[in-house]
């Protein structure tokens, strides 16, 4: 019965469905086409190798990867706790840790300032005790990106943990597996898809983060000016060529990772 497969009757052609789906696809494709056709192909090499572009791209990659790593290290235990733990206030904790997902990023930036800024209730003692300030630094960028992106990781992984069959862990223990072995050889492989999806989602969100970054970390080329910030500044200074070229780079980088992930995960 397991290998009969799920042979299905072929779906009848639904014109309405096809039209709506086609419109949706075009809705996404047209702006991409706009970017490609509007790009300054004539002098694009000089634009994308300019100091602004190189600095911004470098900062974006370093910051987004760091934020993703932070999400992995701190987000996984949190997801585990939310999925497996039973304690009062669990619903509240889940709500709070996923709040950044629904807040406008700039709100996140303001909140971050009030907590970790130089006059913030955490930031102030931090500065007087260690001299460390987070605003205006790359660390600040990473904090801002982690704040908005980690909830995506937590939600995705928690969902994966919830939906796995925990009795398989019982089976493993009954066969003699220590808790560590159960985790490494049973739990982890079973939640791998949601782990991978969560990581990519988090990284993408961190890469595109703007509002919290510019509010909390500020905007300084070479220090805190990530790609989205550089694009915004050039776009608002009527340097459209630079804005479009940088946008194109960001889109390309994101596309490459999205496609790469699907390949690794198997048949798309």
């Amino acid at each position, binding site marked *: 019965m397991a290998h009969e497969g799920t042979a299905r009757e072929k779906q009848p052609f639904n014109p309405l469905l096809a039209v709506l789906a086609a419109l949706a696809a075009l809705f996404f494709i047209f702006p991409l086409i706009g970017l490609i056709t509007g790009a300054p192909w004539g002098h694009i090499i000089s634009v994308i190798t300019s100091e602004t572009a190189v600095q911004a791209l470098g900062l974006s990659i370093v910051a987004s990867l760091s934020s993703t790593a932070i999400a992995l290290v701190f987000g996984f235990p949190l997801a585990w706790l939310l999925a497996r733990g039973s304690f009062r206030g669990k619903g509240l904790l889940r709500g709070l840790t996923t709040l950044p997902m629904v807040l406008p990023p700039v709100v996140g930036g303001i909140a971050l300032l009030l907590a970790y800024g130089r006059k913030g209730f955490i930031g102030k003692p931090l500065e007087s005790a260690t001299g460390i300030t987070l605003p205006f630094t790359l660390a600040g960028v990473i904090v801002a990106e982690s704040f908005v992106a980690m909830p995506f990781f937590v939600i995705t992984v928690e969902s994966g943990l919830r939906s796995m069959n925990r009795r*398989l862990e019982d089976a493993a223990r009954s066969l003699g597996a220590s808790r560590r072995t159960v985790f490494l050889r049973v739990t982890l492989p079973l939640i791998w898809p949601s782990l991978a999806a969560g990581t990519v989602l988090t990284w993408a969100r961190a890469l595109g983060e703007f509002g919290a970054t510019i509010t909390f970390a500020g905007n300084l080329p070479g220090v805190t000016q990530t790609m989205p910030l550089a694009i915004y500044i050039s776009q608002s200074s009527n340097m459209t060529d630079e804005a479009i070229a940088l946008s194109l780079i960001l889109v390309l980088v994101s596309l490459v990772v999205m496609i790469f992930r699907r390949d690794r995960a198997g048949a798309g």
Partner: protein
Amino acid sequence: MLEADIQLRLSRLDLNAAFTVAAGEVLALLGPNGSGKSTTLRALVGLLPLAGGRVVLDGTVLEDPAKRVKVAPEKRPIALMFQDYLLFPHMSAVENVAFGLRCRGTDKKTAREKAAQTLARLDLAGVTDAKPGAMSGGQQQRVAMARALVTDPRLLLLDEPLAALDVSIKTNVRRLLRDVLRQSNAANILVTHDLLDAVALGDRMIVLEHGQIVQTGTPAEVTARPRSSYVADLTGVNLLRGKASGTMLELDGGGRLMCAGPATGPTLAVIAPAGVAVSRQRPEGKEWNAWLGKVSAVDLMGDRVRVHVDGTPAITAEVPPAAVDELRLDDGGELWAYVEPAAITTYPQ
């Protein structure tokens, strides 16, 4: 040898079961749903902590709440074959089977070889590298068996091993399982709701109802003298309770029967449906054991017909199919039941 005294307090159930299983013995555990069969197994494995009692296997105390002793599941030499197999979907058959060995320290190569051997023994050499999703139900069941057997456990627990199989392959797998169990020198507990499994595979039997053991004995003893309506239903016999004085049996629910053999005190009476005669008129010349009831149901079971008669007492009779027309049983209505004293087997409660 297993000496188990399982005491558990769960939300739906209070479980109190004490029993022993000798090495090489197969104990069949029967009972209706919710009676605590699977719970007993989970407790023996160590997945559920005991509230009281003790579990001792081959002289080693595995759990003793009073003395705060609890050996972790992974350290108990016990294997459990789950009702839904619980094969690891991301591992192949041989990896599944080798899992237990590798957990207990065997190196990868040896474990794989042993696993492959066990798979071959169960006629699964063709699916060694297949994942569970690509196997048939019967193959999955045997892989689950192999996985439990390969670790040479001192206690083997089988939770409804044949329940999910197609009827057509059940007989073959039952035979396979019997051979495997015969060769095992571990203590074995087989949980089942199928009496045929218990009779075919079990050396002894325990009947569990609402968390309590209501009957133990060999399958033959239990089926011949059921002490609970659950077993009576399984074996398809009528079970009545009453107080006997001599050959007269006063039934608890009302009515009295004359039996062949004398008895005293609280007594159980078993009557095979085939031993109950039914008729539309009062049986002639029968002073005892005849009473009037009402047809409540007529069941066709293959080439036999069972008639359920509501009355004092209620009784099930078996009649040839022709009788349905003759007596116009489909019309329902009143029906006389009669039992020969010799057809009543009595034994003390």
